[in-house]
């Protein structure tokens, strides 16, 4: 019997990373900006996305959304009211979306082709831990945080906030009644991800939505330049 050490140096999520790289190349070739929206359950991702889709459609942008949940197609039906094509992904117990699920749902999506889109939004499963490990090939990862969740959420979940490209604070209309400490929340986000763009929004009142839409347009323009 001899003992041997075999060097492997293999990424554990290599399969996902390879699929994500393929998706990223497809998105780029089609000129579509893809956003991966991640937050806890109850932050208001769906309502924020509803307003985003509706406003973007009103401005003539070609948008679509994939929405992940363990079960039900409630969110897809809600989002479809915006008039944008929406497809539900049910993970049946899996706590995150992965690149394979995205690829499968993009293939055979009736009436939707990447090169007919300007923006594709992916609403991840509500979870602040696992989605941070799974690249979906997105151009922008967005971490959302509502004023009802506590200003220290970024400190409690640094892995997600550190991997985000933009942060969105939702439900700003409730900031007063919740005693939300805005300065502290902004400080905490910046401690974990220095210099990140932060949007303070309310889907109910429309606060911050124009700034958010302008950011998306700028990002898309700079990437296709």
């Amino acid at each position, binding site marked *: 019997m001899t003992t041997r050490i075999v060097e*492997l140096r293999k990424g554990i999520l290599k399969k996902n990373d390879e699929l994500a790289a393929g998706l990223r190349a497809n998105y780029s070739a089609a000129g579509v900006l893809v956003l991966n929206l991640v937050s806890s359950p109850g932050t208001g991702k769906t309502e924020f996305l509803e307003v985003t889709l509706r406003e973007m459609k009103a401005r003539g942008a070609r948008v679509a959304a994939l929405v992940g949940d363990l079960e039900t197609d409630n969110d897809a039906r809600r989002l479809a009211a915006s008039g944008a094509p929406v497809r539900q992904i049910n993970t049946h117990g899996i706590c995150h979306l992965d690149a394979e699920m995205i690829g499968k749902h993009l293939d055979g999506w009736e009436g939707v082709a990447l090169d007919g889109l300007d923006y594709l939004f992916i609403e991840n499963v509500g979870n602040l*831990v696992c989605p941070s490990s799974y690249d979906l090939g997105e151009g922008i990862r967005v971490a959302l945080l509502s004023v009802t969740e506590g200003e220290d959420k970024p400190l409690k979940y640094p892995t997600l906030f550190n991997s985000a490209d933009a942060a969105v604070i939702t439900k700003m209309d409730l900031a007063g009644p919740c005693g939300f400490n805005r300065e502290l929340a902004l400080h905490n986000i910046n401690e974990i991800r220095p210099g990140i763009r932060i949007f303070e929004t309310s889907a109910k009142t429309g606060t911050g939505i124009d700034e958010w839409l302008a950011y998306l347009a700028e990002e898309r323009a700079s990437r296709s330049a």
Partner: protein
Amino acid sequence: MHELSIVASIVDTVTESVAAYPGARVVEVRLRVGALASVIEDSLQFCYGIATEGTPLEGSRLVVNILPVVVHCAACAADVELEGLQSFRCPCCGEPCSDLRQGRELEIEAIEIDEVEEAV
């Protein structure tokens, strides 16, 4: 919470790799896991025992080397190690650092196997 799928992926990769050494027994699997990889060692160890049953990895040890977060500090012109995950600032000068150089790794570094020597 996704540790079981991570362990399943480790089992697949190692099983493929040991196929090149017929009859070999896996003794140890060594991982490199960054502190920002969202993986908990206790959960990995718990899942490992279950997921390796009936595979060439059954009975092997899982060794998890946690790598600290390293960022590049532009002010110090150096890569610096963070002590924790609560502040992405240079521990030397206090400057915010967003340029991550290490911390998201999630890889199988090496495996140790016992090979059966062929009869001469």
